[in-house]
């Protein structure tokens, strides 16, 4: 417990650094002063609410996690994309491209089925889609590669500031003019405005790690998906398979990323949270197990020769396992 207090006090000192405060907006600083105060008393919070969860390495009451995550993303919203480029050295773009290409969104009009009834347009729900980079890639892929001009993406985020960034970016695209994008401010654990069995493809890229109840989010995904619909998740993994790469990577993520956050976004705490939350996310096997428990069919499971060779484990590691793509199909 002493380590928590010492880290919290260290953060307080960093937040009060005059150099960083020079170009930090007032609202962010105010909100962070309050989070730091609440971090100092984790014992009291535990008494107040029996159920706790983790917020990075901190232990906080479940009811507080959502607001803490909201504070983090509100403060990083404006510099989110720049920061992603700096932290991942631009590789996050490749991951996202690969993720979308693998999903192959859009329905290719086949010359043979022109006589049959036109299929209803594909509906994609991009959870935690904030700044809209997955949504844009989805629509680009569907339109240019599959010549599908009807696919529709709903960008959903719990955070209005992140959603505002997405609106700003997507409103100038031709897709917004064609009414192929809509926005939804919702908690992924309770998508009550989305009807049952209405979504073809549910994606969540680098978001599900921040959810308080991951199992509730999975159940909700299962509910909104059509039978045969796909749940796809691109997320960091806590450990790399190769111990040597893992050591180098941990060094980078725990020392460089908070530093870049401090210098570029004037916000060390948010990026400290980011790397800690990656450590806390379940391992690939465990996460695939959770997806299976929610009722999804995980690719490659139970095939002959499962466990040997690439493609049989049910997920796909990216860049030595820094991130991983998990998919699940809702059975009929």
């Amino acid at each position, binding site marked *: 417990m002493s380590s928590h207090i010492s880290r919290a006090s260290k953060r307080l000192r960093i937040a009060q650094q005059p150099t960083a405060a020079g170009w930090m907006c007032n609202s962010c600083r105010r909100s962070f002063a309050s989070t730091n105060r609440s971090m100092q008393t984790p014992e009291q919070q535990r008494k107040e609410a029996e159920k706790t969860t983790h917020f990075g390495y901190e232990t906080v009451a479940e009811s507080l996690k959502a607001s803490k995550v909201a504070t983090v993303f509100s403060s990083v919203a404006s510099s989110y994309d720049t920061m992603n480029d700096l932290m991942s050295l631009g590789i996050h773009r490749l991951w996202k491209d690969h993720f979308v290409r*693998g999903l192959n969104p859009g*329905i290719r009009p086949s010359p043979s089925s022109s006589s049959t009834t036109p299929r209803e347009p594909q509906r994609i729900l991009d959870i935690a889609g904030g700044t809209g980079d997955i949504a844009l890639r989805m629509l680009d892929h569907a339109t240019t590669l599959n010549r599908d001009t009807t696919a529709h993406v709903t960008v959903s985020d719990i955070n209005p500031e992140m959603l505002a960034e997405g609106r700003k970016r997507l409103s100038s695209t031709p897709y917004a003019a064609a009414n192929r994008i809509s926005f939804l401010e919702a908690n992924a654990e309770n998508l009550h405005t989305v009807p049952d069995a209405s979504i073809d493809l549910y994606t969540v890229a680098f978001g599900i790690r921040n959810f308080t109840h991951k199992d509730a989010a999975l159940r909700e995904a299962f509910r909104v998906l059509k039978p045969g619909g796909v749940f796809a998740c691109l997320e960091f993994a806590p450990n790399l398979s190769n111990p040597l790469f893992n050591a180098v990577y941990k060094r980078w993520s725990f020392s460089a990323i908070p530093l870049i956050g401090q210098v570029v976004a004037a916000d060390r705490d948010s990026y400290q949270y980011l790397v800690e939350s990656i450590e806390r996310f379940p391992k690939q096997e465990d996460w695939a197990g959770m997806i299976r428990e929610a009722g999804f069919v995980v690719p490659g499971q*139970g095939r*002959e020769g499962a466990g040997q060779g690439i493609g049989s484990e049910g997920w796909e590691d990216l860049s030595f396992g820094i991130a991983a793509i998990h*998919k699940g199909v809702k059975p*009929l």
Partner: protein
Amino acid sequence: MSLRNSLLRAPATLRPLLVQQPARALYHSYEHSPAPPYPETETKILSSALTHVPTHGFTQEALNLGARDAGYLDISTNLFRKGAFDLILYYLVTQRLALANRVQFPDTTTGVGLKVRSLTMSRLRANGEAGVVPHWTGALGHMSLAENIPASLRELAKLSDEIWFLAGDKAVDASWYTKRATLSSVYAAAEMYQTQDQSTDFKDTEAFLDRRLEEVRVMGSAVGGTMQWAGFQAGAVVNLLRSKGMRI
């Protein structure tokens, strides 16, 4: 690996409870009927996709049509990360497992060599019956992509093992390996030849296969003879040296 470790740490009486699904045997078992090679959902989509292969080839398009036929959505083909190659692999696996039912040997006096020949030819004819021969060059192209080579070779090795097993070969010496290796190369060559075969009922392919098997037989006996000769010579040398008083 972790599963195996945790399993072995558990008390012996509890171990059967911890094994969730019976592990697939790595050998041909007479006691246990093998589990289906693919899970139910994947089997449905892939088997209906195979019916579209004669018209669309081994493509994503065939997979999409198969998913629609099975009542799934186009996007459901995300079950198959490698797309077309997963369809090819499914075709190879199902054809390999179907081989046992395709060929029966009521005559117990048939030699192993003849059985191997008819099993191999039957597997090649299955390509013609499934209507995949015109698309097989494309499939071979997919199989020869660097990322797919290990899975393709594994499947080829399994096919040649299946053929030798069904032919009743019971060799337990080094020829176990050479037999499988040579049959794999013969089969791969014959399959390549088949894609260019213009004759009716694959007569040319059959003749090609016969020539290759004959070569292997001649080669095999030559190699066997040479090895035997070398063995005798080595023994003679040892005896010669002993007769000169050397303590070997």
